[in-house]
């Protein structure tokens, strides 16, 4: 069928079942936007390109589909970089379509020209510059395939302006042919047998789950495995939700702000089954002493993750959709008394948990951030999509919210992007209109993309935005308090911004909780509002996130705290 490049893109988006795109128009993509207009394609206009890419990312994390954003050349494209890097670090499937100046102008420092392929190469799974309209169908097909298969990730398609208007005989390819890309699904069954043998002799085994379990939608089989073996579980930040937080064998998050039980169990275990994890430095603490008593088994789809940070005795390379069911099946057919074998070990971890549970000092004068999280948890029964920004509130959420379902925590784990939360929450709400979406954000992070409050109002996206307002950059101030002699260099935010008025000015309901006694009542009122709400919640300035493994320390050298 003969059509213009812009129409070919829209046809391809339809073929890929893209229900909505997030974007922002501009000179180089005018022809594409004209085609979107004519096709009446579902498009969410954000207020900044960074908002568009984070929204596409939040949409992808919440739905499991590929998130798509469209922006113009030059500054439009460069404004995506933080969002693309955020998605790359957390392996989120995105396709970012950027306009580029016309072919004849490329390389001449033309108006609004930026080499976005060059700029994004280190933070994309792959990228394309399209200069010939005939290449569009193949590249669109490949881009979506690459983004969603294997270890997912962002793909950039940079399209020269004249390609949108040029015509082609459109035919969408049925298959992709990429000589250098063959994502592995099934790995070595032999490796699974080896793991089973190690599991049989282990006295203190520990299952360690990461974001891969969420990404591979393998929560159910993980639950089956845990229930069958009775092996204790710890998680990374990105692994939260795969196993319900209140599962008796889930000992919570490990690492810098992990639970006492999880960090002690990791230090003492003799077999660590790492599943879809990448042994980030925030998890391992001092790397040389990480699991020094254990054999490490590493399950991952990406061979490059094996031995990158932690040496694995056994590697199980392959899709978790293959390896987890296979492992579970093998534990069943082994007819082995798994539970009996780990009984004493689980008791020991339970003892640690009882000794030092997650606690905080209650306060009748001031609203404690942990109490807000617990209250939201109670009022929603944990049935909500929780989105965070980055910093103290993010860690408190990880420590205190009781997650029930996979894909229920959306957070920038790898890159740690402040300003991620609000647009990501809008994307999640767009993809899941019937779910309750709560954004927890600090008074620092909200200001990094607060323009998107207007987007929330324009599309009436009923996200509930809880601002933990401590008048400081909380995590920065905590480090300054603990490691920099209390010199609060530029971390104090005390200003004149009234978040209630800011919300109202942009068409969002604004509320404030002033004292602990109002917490429940106002939160109930917030949840009852059919549209978006901003809630300004003053919290104490000097509250620390604890426990904390200081930088350069071992996991068992936690600074404890609480009441």
């Amino acid at each position: 069928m003969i059509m213009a490049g812009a129409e070919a893109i829209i046809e391809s988006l339809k073929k890929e079942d893209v229900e909505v795109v997030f974007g922002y128009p501009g000179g180089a993509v005018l022809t594409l936007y004209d085609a979107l207009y004519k096709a009446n394609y579902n498009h969410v206009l954000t207020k900044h390109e960074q908002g568009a890419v984070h929204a596409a990312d939040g949409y992808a994390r919440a739905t499991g589909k590929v998130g798509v954003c469209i922006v113009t050349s030059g500054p439009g494209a460069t404004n995506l970089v933080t969002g693309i890097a955020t998605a790359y670090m957390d392996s989120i499937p995105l396709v970012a379509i950027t306009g580029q100046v016309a072919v004849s102008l490329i390389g001449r420092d033309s108006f609004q020209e930026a080499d976005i392929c060059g700029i994004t190469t280190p933070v994309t799974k792959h990228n394309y510059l399209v200069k010939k309209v005939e290449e569009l169908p193949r590249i669109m097909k490949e881009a979506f395939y690459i983004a969603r298969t294997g270890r997912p990730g962002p793909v950039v398609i940079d399209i020269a302006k004249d390609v949108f208007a040029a015509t082609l005989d459109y035919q969408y390819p049925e298959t992709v042919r990429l000589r250098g890309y063959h994502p592995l699904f099934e790995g070595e069954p032999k490796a699974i047998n080896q793991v089973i043998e190690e599991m049989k002799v282990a006295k203190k085994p520990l299952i360690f789950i990461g974001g891969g379990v969420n990404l591979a939608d393998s929560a159910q089989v993980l639950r089956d495995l845990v229930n069958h073996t009775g092996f204790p579980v710890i998680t990374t930040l990105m692994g939260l939700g795969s196993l319900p937080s209140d599962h008796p064998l889930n000992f919570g998050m490990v690492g810098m702000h992990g639970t006492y039980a999880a960090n002690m169990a990791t230090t003492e275990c003799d077999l660590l089954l790492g599943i879809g994890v990448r042994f980030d430095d925030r998890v391992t603490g001092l790397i040389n002493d990480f699991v020094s008593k254990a054999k490490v088994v590493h399950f991952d789809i990406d061979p490059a993750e094996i031995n990158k940070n932690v040496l694995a005795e056994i590697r199980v390379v392959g899709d978790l959709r293959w390896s987890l069911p296979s492992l579970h099946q093998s534990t069943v057919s082994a007819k082995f008394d798994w539970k009996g074998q780990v009984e004493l070990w689980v008791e020991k971890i339970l003892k640690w948990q009882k000794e030092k549970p997650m606690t905080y000092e209650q306060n009748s004068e001031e609203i404690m951030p942990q109490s807000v999280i617990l209250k939201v948890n109670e009022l929603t029964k944990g049935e909500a999509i929780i989105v965070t920004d980055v910093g103290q509130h993010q860690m408190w959420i990880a420590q205190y919210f009781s997650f029930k379902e996979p894909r229920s925590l959306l957070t920038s784990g790898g890159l740690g992007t402040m300003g991620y939360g609000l647009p990501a929450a809008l994307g999640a709400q767009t993809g899941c209109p019937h779910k309750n979406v709560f954004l927890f954000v600090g008074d620092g992070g909200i200001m990094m993309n607060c323009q998107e409050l207007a987007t929330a109002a324009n599309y009436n996206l009923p996200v509930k935005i809880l601002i933990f307002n401590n008048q400081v950059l909380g995590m920065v101030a905590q480090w300054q308090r603990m490691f920099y002699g209390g010199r609060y260099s530029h971390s104090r935010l005390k200003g004149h911004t009234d978040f209630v008025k800011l919300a109202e000015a942009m068409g969002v309901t604004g509320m404030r909780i002033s004292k602990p006694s109002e917490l429940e009542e106002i939160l109930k009122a917030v949840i009852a509002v059919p549209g978006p709400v901003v809630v300004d919640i003053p919290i104490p300035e000097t509250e620390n996130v604890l426990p904390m493994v200081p930088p350069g320390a071992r996991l068992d050298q936690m600074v404890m705290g609480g009441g």
Partner: protein
Amino acid sequence: MKKHTLAVLVENRPGVLTHISGLISRRAFNIESIAAGYTEEADTTRITIIVEADVIELEQVVNQLSKLIDVIKIIDLTGTDLIHRELALIKVKASSETRPDIVDVVHIFRARIVDVNPETMVIELSGEERKIDALCQMLNNHGIIEIVRTGKIALSRGPVPAKDC
């Protein structure tokens, strides 16, 4: 740490070398030389990479490079029966007095003289790295003006091509 010779087959497309060199630098891999060129297949480029690494690092280099969509195949040629060559062009000062001496050296090394003028000569030598190093050392006394080297390329002996390994 050991030196490894990798043959990397990649799609012959613009931007591929950028992807590869960018990855090498951002992952801080210790690359000694990199040489690229066309192959018997029009759509394939072959890159020879010499990397200094222990076993674990080498595995990372291979696995990370393999992740690049445009990388078709990586073959570690280390330990196989190899022919490897590098080409060098050396411009050296040569007056009428010193020229016979330089010509002697060129003959000993089986190099070739490809340009002569009243003040300089350009010498071409292909061979293994050490041979080129040795020639450069010999010519140093005469005053080397500039050197250009291609970086090492390598091919296995026997009938099997790297792509079928």
